[in-house]
């Protein structure tokens, strides 16, 4: 579908819904073309392509809120879907928790560096990038697995409240795991919105180097450690933390940040930002799901929780302005950003006499979302730090602590940041190395 067809279709649906009695209406059309190359054992496992057009329709009728996803955009099907949606809305009960959608029009700035048409044109070249990454990793390791994605997304929005906007974004990313042995692995990623910033070779090299260094691990010991988290590892926790900043998560009891606005939740050096407007941001967008221009939101400033993430409705409920993070049901973070610190990488490590270096984690789960009690499991290279040097590789440990404690115990941040996005770090993040003191680490009984 070209731009005019998309616009005509969205406006058609908007008018149709309004004519049938809907009050607030948002029509959003997403055109998505994604390619994937999946590899394992140094071989291509499969190549994949997704080609889709989807229309999301959100409408309200006397505070009854409904939404639908339509994939068949023929006028006949669209008419029937809207009729059904109105009928659906009429049979529901009103929500006293609904406070409306954004009122436009808005002036939209562009998001610099968000679209590289060269990425949109890539096809079999992706296989060359994979080959490059594998070969770099194999300089250090024996075996690799991973995935490369390219995405070209077109997003068009129109609403009953004077909103009309469109946006186009490209992404390219590779996530590679290298194995020097069955029990010695490393992981590297490279993710960008333009080809210039994409470096598959570097991702392969990092994964391979860690894998080689992780050879011959010994069982780790339970205890309390100062831990340096690689950006890849801390991105997993950061995604959870920014996710818990969603007003929706707070409302349903799924957040340790509830009742903590303007309170200290981290050390003074911790400033966490959600920024959907970030130039070159992996998940930046010109507008949110209501059409509100995205912005830079300082969620935690020098350790103090300043705001939750809001759409228009949750913002009105809390008596604040929207932070442009709609999600019509649940506000969500765009790009999770940690403000950098002063420490060079070597300087950071040299300040730790006895601690751990965790290069990656997965499977973070919570005993209690309201308190933040959690555990997460290191995977890939896990090392002892002795006298400022990365030394013995370890195995079979688990970080078992509390997110508030972790944030409050952050004592140093690296001065360089990396973009992280992979299978178990779903919120794209820009962050440095993070040093956390006194973290509880446990191990399993044999």
């Amino acid at each position: 579908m070209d731009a005019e067809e998309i616009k005509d279709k969205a406006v058609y649906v908007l008018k149709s819904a309004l004519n049938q009695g809907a009050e607030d209406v948002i029509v959003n059309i997403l055109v998505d073309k994604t390619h994937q190359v999946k590899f394992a054992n140094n071989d291509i496992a499969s190549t994949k392509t997704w080609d889709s057009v989807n229309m999301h329709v959100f409408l309200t009728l006397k505070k009854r809120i409904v939404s639908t996803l339509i994939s068949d955009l023929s006028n006949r099907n669209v008419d029937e879907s809207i009729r059904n949606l109105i009928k659906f809305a009429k049979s529901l009960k009103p929500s006293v928790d609904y406070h409306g959608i954004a009122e436009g029009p808005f002036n939209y700035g562009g998001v610099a560096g968000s679209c590289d048409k060269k990425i949109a044109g890539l096809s079999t070249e992706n296989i060359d990038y994979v080959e490059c990454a594998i070969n770099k990793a194999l300089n250090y390791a024996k075996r690799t697995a991973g995935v490369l994605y390219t995405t070209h997304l077109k997003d068009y929005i129109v609403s009953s409240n004077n909103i009309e906007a469109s946006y186009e974004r490209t992404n390219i990313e590779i996530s590679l795991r290298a194995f020097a042995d069955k029990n010695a692995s490393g992981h590297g990623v490279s993710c960008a919105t333009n080809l210039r910033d994409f470096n598959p070779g570097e991702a392969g090299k990092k994964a391979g180097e860690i894998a080689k260094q992780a050879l011959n691990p010994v069982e780790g010991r339970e205890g309390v450690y100062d831990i340096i988290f690689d950006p890849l590892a801390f991105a997993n926790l950061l995604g959870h933390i920014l996710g818990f900043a969603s007003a929706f998560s707070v409302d349903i009891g799924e957040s340790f940040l509830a009742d903590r606005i303007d309170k200290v939740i981290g050390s003074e050096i911790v400033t966490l930002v959600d920024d959907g407007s970030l130039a070159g941001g992996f998940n930046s967008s010109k507008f949110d799901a209501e059409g509100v221009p995205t912005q830079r939101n300082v969620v935690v400033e020098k350790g103090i929780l300043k705001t939750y993430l809001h759409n228009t409705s949750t913002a009105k409920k809390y008596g604040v302005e929207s932070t442009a993070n709609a999600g019509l049901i649940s506000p969500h973070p765009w790009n999770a950003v940690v403000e950098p610190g002063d420490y060079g990488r070597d300087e950071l490590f040299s300040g730790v006499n006895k601690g751990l270096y965790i290069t990656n984690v997965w499977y973070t789960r919570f005993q209690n979302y309201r308190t933040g009690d959690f555990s997460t499991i290191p995977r890939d290279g896990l090392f002892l730090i002795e006298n400022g040097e990365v030394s013995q590789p370890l195995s079979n440990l688990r970080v078992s602590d509390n997110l508030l404690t972790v944030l409050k115990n952050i004592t140093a941040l690296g001065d360089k940041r990396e973009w992280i996005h992979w299978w178990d770090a779903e919120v794209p993040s820009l962050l440095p190395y993070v040093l956390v003191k006194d973290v509880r680490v446990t191990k399993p009984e044999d």
Partner: protein
Amino acid sequence: MVFDILKMFNDLMEFILNHADKLGAQYAEVRLEHSVDNSFILKNGNPDAAGFSSITGLSIRVIVDGAMGFSSTNRLIKPRIKEIVGDVVKTARASSRLVKKPVGLSEEKTVNTRYEIKQKTRIQDIEPDEKLSELMAVENTLEDTGINLPARFFELSDEVREKYYVNSEGTRIHSIIPRVGIFYLITAMSNGNMEQRMFQYAESGGWEAVKNWNLPEKIASEAKTLDNVLREGKKSPEGKLDLVLGPEVVGIAVHESTGHPYESDRILGREAAQAGESFVSPDMLNTRIGSDVVNVVEDPTIRHSYGFYLYDDEGVKAKKRFLIKEGVINEFLCNRETAYELGIKSNAAARASNFDREPIVRMANTFISPGDYGFEELIGDVKHGVYMKTFMEWNIDDKRFNQRYVGREAYLIENGELKHPVKKPVLELTTPAFYEAIDAVGNDLAFVAGTCGKGDPMQGIPVWMGGPHIRLRDLTLK
């Protein structure tokens, strides 16, 4: 309007197979899915956005020059589809230069069949307000308990998923499976302390399943349990003791530490960069992993189970799989690709969560087979121990060796009797340590529903997991 997917799309699907063949594909399959789903949210007593969708799309999988290609679309127009077939064949062919070990599929019988789960009360016939009323009834019952529950979240969902699968070997399978489910998270508060319960009910079937769950009574009972733990719970004992686990904990443990590590794609390294690999290797077949009372079964054919299917997403007939027999590793879960690599037949574990996802090796319904012990017998023979009935936090490493379960509802056992609730007992141990410690298996059997995550992009797949109560001897609790 009756949506007849065979009438509407049969010609298109046959065209895809023919066109792929013409372009040189050695194998092709097409899986078309039409799903109609609804969801309802009740958040702290208020209905949030309700949603419905009716989606149709298809995926094409081909093998060209030993390379696998996959493509999916919801733009079901013949000229566009023709381009997509051309692209998927071209890309697979281009990737074949990096394929050192050509992809193959195990030889399986071709099938031409249709199956369906019949609904006693059709989901489609229940009005939205009645569905929402089910949640309101839970809310009202919780209010009647008088327990302080500052946060209450419920999501009711249903779907009817129709699939038509065809492949170039001649298999044609048409299936219709309705599913219903509810997910909830409630928070109880007392004296400034909070406890939470997150749970999911789900099965394959019609609206009658929701009515049978008796949600208001069950969830009110959970709230009372949370309140009881808050008011009466004491510190959990630590150190060496005996443990009795309820079916919910048994279910998550066998899902995580038998089901996942016995997935052959993990064993062979295909999911290494995402869900991970396995501590199990092919040469561990027929070796001991647990005590001889342990039997772990995987069975997709349980009627009305959440993981139900009769043919997998590669057209292979489903059957009961015996992963552990009397403590010995007996069988891995395979699709056609991994079965070919291992030189065996598929046991029908290929599943895809939607039309736009590749079929990969998945569980369906995983459980420990019941034994002979009554619950009283299991408890009665414990001098000092803990009964962990349910859990909240859990995780396991990416080789499925280092696992942890933190109890939600748990009780002290002293001299064969259940005593007061204990708070957050932590069981953290290796997989062999878990299965070796099981000395008695109960004669009951219960399942819980889950949405299992695996694949890249992520595929949440419906499963059941469960078992009887079991007893483990001489383990360390933290």
